[in-house]
């Protein structure tokens, strides 16, 4: 009987543990930011020539994230983390449009914010706090930018999905004519029509007030510290029947270049069925494992606009390579950074044996970019609940049955002594 109570306690402990897990996983998303969206800040005329600049201020309690998305030159997303909740972006439009003057776009902090630094930094990490302070004591601590420079297409005659095959002249994304952004719907897709083709390449930015997941696959987990960029190719005519595509990305990390890609394996594929890998392209402080900024994606692209499992196609990336600063064809990068250390990598879509682009003429891929460490998937409430009930129920049956049998035995014992034996 004593063993029974110990068992009971243990069981309750297990059940309690599961339920506390359950609630902790659902009650995590307390951190929120307020989003303020502005199109072409400081520009009064209808639309600046050559492309728009979208500015999203994500204001937290003690800090601000500035997301800047620009179609001047190659489309670029710039993320600046400041330790003030009242920092702002200043653009000198004339040099900015000329795309050659550093400092034509600045993030201006209030001068009195130093005291609040510690609190803000604690979210990013102490190690980083120190290095950031020594490097740049009064302004932005983390900034990183990502630009999509080229769309590469190659003819995969032997179906090997390796780039050694015939490479067509790349589409330079800075040369495409991009659609105009709209202040009434700032998160509308930005599309660039591809020359000699009815198709286009589109980008869609999302910024978030709080933690959550995207609506459609790959349903990346995001926090208020990150933004999501969806990229898709729709109806671009392939130049060969067996064409496959690659996308060249360039990232600038300011003080901390995005120099390595970590591949994370996760047992959790609930939100991206049958995909167990995610790539984290991270920038970290010198010699430290502390991650200060990241670009994260699941190793999957989809061949249809309404993705299903059978439309999933794996994607791979090359190792990031340092590139010359002139390589950055983005107006935003030139305006913001003075001395840039650029890293570039290619993401290629499809493996040997997979259907070619021509089969659906659609390809979509999603990435997440943010400051701090990449968000880590945890088991959903569904999984935890099913396992808790599934494992708990047999134990419960065992206990109830055991107790019942014991009770019955006890009740039977005295009478059994007087019963005749047959």
């Amino acid at each position: 009987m004593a063993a029974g109570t110990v068992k009971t306690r243990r069981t309750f402990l297990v059940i309690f543990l599961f339920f506390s897990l359950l609630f902790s996983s659902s009650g995590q998303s307390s951190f929120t930011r307020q989003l303020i969206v502005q199109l072409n800040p400081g520009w009064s005329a209808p639309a600046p020539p050559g492309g728009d600049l979208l500015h999203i201020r994500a204001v937290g309690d003690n800090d601000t994230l500035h997301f800047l998305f620009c179609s001047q030159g190659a489309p670029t997303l710039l993320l600046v983390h400041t330790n003030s909740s009242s920092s702002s972006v200043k653009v000198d439009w004339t040099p900015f449009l000329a795309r050659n003057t550093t400092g034509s776009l600045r993030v201006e902090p209030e001068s009195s914010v130093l005291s609040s630094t510690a609190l803000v930094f604690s979210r990013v990490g102490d190690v980083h706090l120190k290095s950031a302070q020594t490097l740049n004591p009064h302004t932005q601590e983390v900034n990183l930018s990502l630009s999509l420079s080229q769309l590469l297409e190659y003819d995969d005659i032997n179906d090997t999905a390796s780039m050694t095959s015939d490479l067509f002249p790349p589409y330079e994304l800075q040369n495409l004519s991009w659609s105009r952004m709209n202040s009434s719907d700032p998160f509308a897709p930005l599309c660039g029509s591809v020359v000699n083709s009815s198709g286009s390449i589109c980008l869609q930015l999302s910024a978030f007030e709080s933690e959550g997941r995207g609506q459609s696959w790959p349903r990346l987990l995001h926090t208020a510290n990150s933004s999501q960029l969806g990229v898709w190719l729709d109806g671009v005519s392939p130049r060969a029947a067996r064409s496959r595509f690659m996308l060249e990305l360039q990232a600038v990390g300011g003080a901390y270049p995005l120099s390595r890609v970590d591949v994370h394996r996760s047992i959790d594929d609930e939100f991206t069925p049958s995909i167990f890998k995610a790539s984290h392209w991270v920038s970290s402080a010198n010699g430290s494992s502390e991650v200060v900024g990241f670009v994260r994606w699941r190793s999957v692209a989809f061949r249809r606009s309404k993705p299903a499992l059978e439309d999933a196609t794996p994607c791979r990336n090359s190792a990031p390579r340092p590139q010359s600063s002139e390589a950055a064809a983005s107006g935003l990068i030139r305006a913001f950074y003075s001395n840039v250390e650029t890293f570039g990598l290619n993401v290629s879509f499809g493996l040997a044996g997979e259907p070619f682009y021509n089969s659906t003429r659609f390809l979509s891929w999603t990435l997440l970019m943010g400051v701090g460490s990449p968000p880590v998937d945890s088991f959903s409430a569904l999984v935890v609940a099913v396992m808790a009930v599934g494992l708990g129920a047999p134990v419960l049956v065992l206990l109830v049955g055991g107790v019942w049998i014991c009770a019955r035995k006890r009740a039977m014992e005295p009478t059994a002594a007087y019963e005749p034996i047959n």
Partner: protein
Amino acid sequence: MADFEERRSLLGDEDERFVGDREPQRGAGGTGGTGAMPAICDPRHLLHRVVVLVFMCFLGFGSYFCYDNPAALQTQVLQDLNLNTENFMRLYAWYSWPNVVLCFFGGFLLDRVFGIRFGTIIFSVFVCAGQIVFATGALLNHFWLMEAGRFIFGIGGESLAVAQNTYAVNWFKGKELNLVFGLQLSMARLGSTVNMNIMGWVYNKVAGLVGSPGYTALGGSLMIAAVTCLFSLICALVLAYLDKRAERILQKEQGGTGEVIKLTDVKDFPLTLWLIFIICVCYYVAIFPFIGLGQVFFIEKFNFSPAEARAVNSIVYIISAPASPILGFLVDKTGRNVVWVIIAVTATLAAHMMLAFTFWNPWIAMSLLGVSYSLLACALWPMVAFVVPEHQLGTAYGFMQSIQNLGLALIAMAAGAILDTRGYLVLEVFFCACICMALMAVVMLYFVDYLRGGDLNQSAAARARLQKEATSDAENKRRPTPRPLLDPSVITCPQECFEMMSFIRLPAPPPAL
């Protein structure tokens, strides 16, 4: 057991002597006209029976080979036909649907309607035609035709297994029957394993021949797989001829399954039997649909090559071939079936949780799954004979197979849908939940059985003691009790059950008055 061995050998001798006595007579009379036959042609001779055994074993090879064709070619089927997983799993569901009903009538059709020889040929034709329709559907890229093919294949598949066992009893009753059952089963496992490991290669060769992978290549490789069914059909024809010939020479009756299924028996089934049904359904739905979907899982989660993935997927079958007789013997010698079932279910749960929540090498989990799957079969199927009277055994096994097929059909589709929308983790959690239900049922079975006197969970020693008492009471020392299930021994039940046929013991009969 010793008694039984003795009786069997005695019987064997008797048989031989009997045959020996009759031979000169017949030679003199010339009734058969086969006086001086070489041993290989003589139905009375062991050598001839071995030849028959070879055909018998290959009779089922085709259907076992083709059953898991979709699993072996999972990636190719999904890609070439542009299917989602739910549709893919319908190929398995369509196989199970006819068997929800047919397992009640398979034996009846063999006995009363067609007869064993004609029945076997008909079922072989169904298997063969089903596979050809399946392959044609792939060639023409018509998925509905493939589903129809699997349905036809299903009509023949399980009934053919019954026919195969009827033949075995017919030719080997009282002689080498256990060995024959064992060999047939090893052949079935061989069919499944060879299929898993060879179809990818066949597909690549066909794809090379037709120029590119695609539904044509898929249809072509499935057509090649159909050759095994054709081969099995030829075996059925040869067996029919040999059986007819033996009947003429030996002047014996055409054998039947001897099975009587009365659906009205269902209302008399005890609670323990229903619990056994629940265990059976909940357990097997977490095994077969998983194997059907395993290949892509091992490729995606564990970075296996397709060939490796197919190999690890087939390990369950490979392990169960040698493990089943060994574990069957172990369970038979120790008794305590309920405890063994609890161990098997728990081990399976552990294996599924390993696959779900860890990146440990899947060879570990799959091997554990293979052993526990064999152990469960050894402990679970013979239990039925303890809880229902002999005359209801056929109905009980038929019913068990029917709901197992119903469960497989439904869960196969559900598993596909879950994978399509929520991925492998949730699918594995779903399978874990099924196993947990089985675990709950087996724990309940333990208590119910305990309250009713604990027949199921007796140790072998206790069983032997009871047996001794029963025999001395009955003053019938020559009859061994519990008796092995040999006489009406062919019962419509799935593959795993046949395997355990030699370990199924009937409880001691009531003492003769």
